[in-house]
């Protein structure tokens, strides 16, 4: 019984990481209907950026992430403004092809710059620190921080979306691009701000990706897959749904691993397929179009 409870708890904590992977993807798709195939590689790219900052400045990954956040906002804004806005229109194919190309460029550039060696963001004693929940169950501090950060990110995004003028502009643009322009909304700028925000979220995801496990330049597509699954399981347009989707994928993986270690990844995919079959709009959809 304890092992199953432990698997459930570890799965929930793992879900926090998947929710962080997915939140930026959900934000971008929700506002501009852009499927960013480079999302996973961008997370890996930012993990290398954080690694480089820690090496250059001799600071810990948390401080490096704080330093990277504004830089990544500007990078996301610039990417959208200079490249992706040009691909958006009636046809879904151009942004798909461009982000697919971007994914290949990022992965190969990272291989060229950093080689295929696995890396890790060293955070000192916190990496192995844990909290004892009961006699037989302990949870790591980093996984707890990951889930806490995912909840904080979802709260912050909800605050922006539902309590600010910018959030109203995000939702209006997502609802009706033509009429949004009549409100004086400069939609290319709104898209660029949204991408900047998504980059900040993926910077936080990159921090925990690098602290929880090894990473190398080729793991981006796998993170993209988990992010997709979390968004679709949770339902489009709902950040809390995305968090729920991440947790479901995480729990399915740890339960699967408990049954048979080889089934871990497969169990997550099966959970995704089951939701897709019975609730194709996801479990907690908000967007109805």
């Amino acid at each position: 019984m304890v092992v199953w409870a432990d698997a459930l708890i570890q799965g929930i904590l793992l879900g926090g990481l998947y929710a962080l992977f997915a939140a930026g993807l959900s934000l971008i798709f929700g506002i501009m209907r852009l499927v960013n195939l480079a999302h996973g590689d961008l997370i890996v790219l930012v993990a290398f950026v954080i690694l480089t900052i820690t090496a250059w400045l001799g600071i810990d990954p948390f401080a490096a992430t704080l330093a990277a956040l504004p830089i990544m906002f500007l990078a996301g804004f610039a990417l959208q403004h200079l490249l992706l806005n040009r691909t958006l229109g009636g046809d879904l194919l151009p942004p798909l092809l461009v982000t697919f190309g971007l994914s290949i460029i990022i992965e190969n550039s990272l291989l060229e710059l950093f080689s295929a060696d696995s890396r890790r963001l060293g955070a000192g004693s916190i990496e192995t620190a844990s909290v004892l929940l009961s006699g037989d169950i302990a949870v790591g501090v980093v996984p707890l921080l990951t889930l806490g950060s995912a909840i904080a990110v979802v709260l912050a995004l909800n605050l922006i979306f539902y309590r600010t003028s910018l959030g109203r502009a995000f939702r209006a643009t997502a609802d009706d691009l033509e009429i949004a322009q009549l409100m004086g909304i400069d939609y290319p700028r709104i898209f660029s701000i949204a991408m900047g925000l998504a980059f900040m979220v993926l910077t936080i995801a990159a921090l925990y990706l690098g602290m929880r496990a090894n990473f190398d330049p080729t793991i981006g597509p796998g993170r993209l897959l988990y992010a997709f699954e979390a968004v679709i399981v949770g339902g489009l347009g709902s950040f809390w749904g995305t968090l729920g989707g991440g947790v479901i994928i995480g729990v399915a993986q740890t339960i699967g691993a408990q049954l048979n270690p080889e089934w871990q990844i497969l169990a997550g995919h099966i959970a995704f397929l089951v939701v897709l079959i019975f609730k194709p709009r996801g479990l907690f959809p908000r967007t109805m179009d």
Partner: protein
Amino acid sequence: MALLETRGLTAFYGDFQALYGIDSILQPGETIAIIGANGAGKSTYLKAIAGLIGRPTESVWFDGLPIGGMPAAEIMKRGIALVPEGRRLFPSLTVEENLLIGRYGRSASGPWSLDRIYALFPAIKARRHSASTKLSGGEQQMTAIGRALISNPRVLLCDEISLGLAPITVRNLYDALPDVKAEGTSVVLVEQDIVQASKVSDRIYCFQEGRLSLSGRPAELSRDQIHFAYFGS
């Protein structure tokens, strides 16, 4: 100087030409009505002014400046607000959020505030926290007009505000127009209902198949003239 003017305004949907050289003038404080049958180009005329479809740069003038090459968001910031056909409220926003988003690009000082719009349309005040999709057609139209007014525009473009609404609702909406005029807002009203348009407008422009077929003051135009300009026979 005219507040808003079109000079030989043309507009296309792909290869299809929807407007052929429309000349029109709106003076400050004036209300003009654009009438015509379905497909006459009335809505296209408003969309061209608002910047939602392509048009020649010097075919639309606002306050003495050509605005034909400007995007819709920039035109709105200069003081032209459109109430679109079919209301087109934002479904994910509440009624009050729909009103507030109307001043996102232009927060000019003026008579129209949230309170003033609720005073003009008390029916929507009670529903202000409701989803806009839950409103009746009339309440949706009131919200759409309020959304345009809250930016304190100098010109209000209204596209068929009576479409699909009960007569009593239409009367309530038209009863609000004198208040809008009294605040100095100029109005361009697209309407199929000739009687309603004649009552509230200073001048009428009649469109037929994308061309201007008649213009003048309502009192100076005979029933036969309007009928011929409207239907072409």
